[in-house]
């Protein structure tokens, strides 16, 4: 059993991280702190998950979110997608394993992965609306959010959602308010089977290794850790029985990276675009300097008058 994090205190205590620990800030250039905090991570062991949705209700409860009562559409996934109020969601996949002939019910808790290289932050045009702390938490700052939705497109996992009520972007905060006082996220605390554990990223990797060894002993040869290098690793990681096929798990990205489209848009595109605009304008100026204005001459007017005169 992964040791339980002690119960919270109701005494006031200093936050363990804050503004000074910011390493990235959207649409801003900042100087990161000299020393990074120990990186934290949440490990989701899909092989231990019973799909009970305790993480979902714990998330709603702690974050005081009110989600709508929906309908059943023939599946267990409710709500049907992440929303501005549902920051985490169980996604269920029925998979008939062709090798073993067994049915497998793959249940993945979806939510923000807290990427080391966050696409949302990269896409965000609003200074300080998205921040990344040196412990790895990527958080949205409501006050600075303009609700443009670029983070949604920037995210390689399609996680943020824009609220219809206040037009701000929302996603899992990794319960930054809990982590700041030494607690784990609400979902982690609730998870009945410890399919979600929380600690330093190194601890989580070591714990995952133990889980993977157990899965391999049960015939899941391809069991492994999902900590995708395409986004330089994540602070929410999965243990998967079929780490070679992440897409089995309700379309988890096989090799997530910030979409080349987004990279093009927010990387080279920005500069190329501005350059093209600038060059065009410059060309006009140069052309004007070299060529001078294209004036209508007296003869032109006379010819016109003549033409008009001849006809009228």
């Amino acid at each position, binding site marked *: 059993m992964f040791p339980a994090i002690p*119960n919270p205190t109701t005494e006031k205590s200093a936050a363990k*991280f804050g503004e000074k620990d910011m390493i990235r800030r959207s649409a801003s250039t900042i100087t990161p702190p000299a020393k990074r905090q120990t990186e934290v991570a949440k490990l989701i062991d899909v092989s231990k998950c019973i799909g009970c949705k305790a993480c979902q*209700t714990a998330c709603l409860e*702690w974050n005081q979110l009110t989600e709508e009562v929906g309908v059943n559409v023939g599946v267990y996934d409710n709500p049907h997608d992440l929303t501005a109020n549902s920051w985490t969601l169980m996604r269920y996949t029925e998979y008939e394993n062709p090798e073993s002939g067994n049915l497998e019910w793959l249940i993945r808790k979806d939510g923000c992965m807290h990427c080391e290289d966050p696409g949302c932050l990269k896409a965000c045009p609003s200074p300080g609306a998205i921040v990344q702390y040196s412990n790895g938490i990527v*958080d949205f700052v409501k006050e600075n959010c303009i609700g443009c939705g670029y983070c949604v497109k920037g995210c390689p996992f399609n996680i943020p959602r824009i609220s219809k009520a206040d037009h701000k972007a929302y996603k899992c905060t990794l319960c930054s*308010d809990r982590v700041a006082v*030494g607690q784990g996220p609400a979902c982690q*605390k*609730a998870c009945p089977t410890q399919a979600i554990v929380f600690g330093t990223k190194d601890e989580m990797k070591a714990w995952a290794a133990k889980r993977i060894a157990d899965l391999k002993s049960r015939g899941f040869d391809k069991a492994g850790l999902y900590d995708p290098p395409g986004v330089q690793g994540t602070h929410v990681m999965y243990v998967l029985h079929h780490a070679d096929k992440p897409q089995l798990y309700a379309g988890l990205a096989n090799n997530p990276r910030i979409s080349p489209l987004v990279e093009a848009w927010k990387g080279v595109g920005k500069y190329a675009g501005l350059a093209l605009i600038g060059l065009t304008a410059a060309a006009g100026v140069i052309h004007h300097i070299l060529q001078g204005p294209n004036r209508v001459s007296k003869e032109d007017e006379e010819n016109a008058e003549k033409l008009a005169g001849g006809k009228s």
Partner: protein
Amino acid sequence: MNIEVSRRRFLQLAGAGAAGTAIGALGFGEAEAQVSALVKPFRLVQTKEARTTCPYCAVSCGMLAYAAPSKTNKGKLEVVHIEGDADHPVNRGTLCPKGAAAIDYIHSATRVKTPMYRKPGTAKFEPVTWDFAMERIAKLMKDDRDANFVEKNAAGTTVNRWTTTAFLSGSSVTNETGWVTYKVARGLGLLQIENQARI
């Protein structure tokens, strides 16, 4: 970032005292005034913690309930958050989707707030006083008991039973409530007493 991972061994008799202590002494005003620039302030600061038990299944998970003065029910403490008790040996701080949402049970839209009475043949409940409700129920029960109580059966054996009123007892009430229920129901001579154990 320092996560204390050692398991805390808890002292016996460590629950909080009874509810209803002076609310002002808890200093909520200060907590509300505190505004943090980026990371939200921890919302359990200066709430009152009590160790309770989940009302749902028979794992009977240990819960921590945090209470603060109610905004809608003036002068009363109400639960503002519930999470698992990490010291509890069975659930170790975890809760299932029901336990983790138990606060919505307390504040359920269908929670009964005041005694309600439905007159025969009418189509609605109306609020009544406790006194009216209890007096009326006592009267209805006494009338039925007087009419149907059997002191001796046909064979002349003393049987002291009342078989025309039934009592379905809850299985999520405390043992102490169960005992009072037993005493009252059996004391009246009821035989039709059941709980959820059978179903």
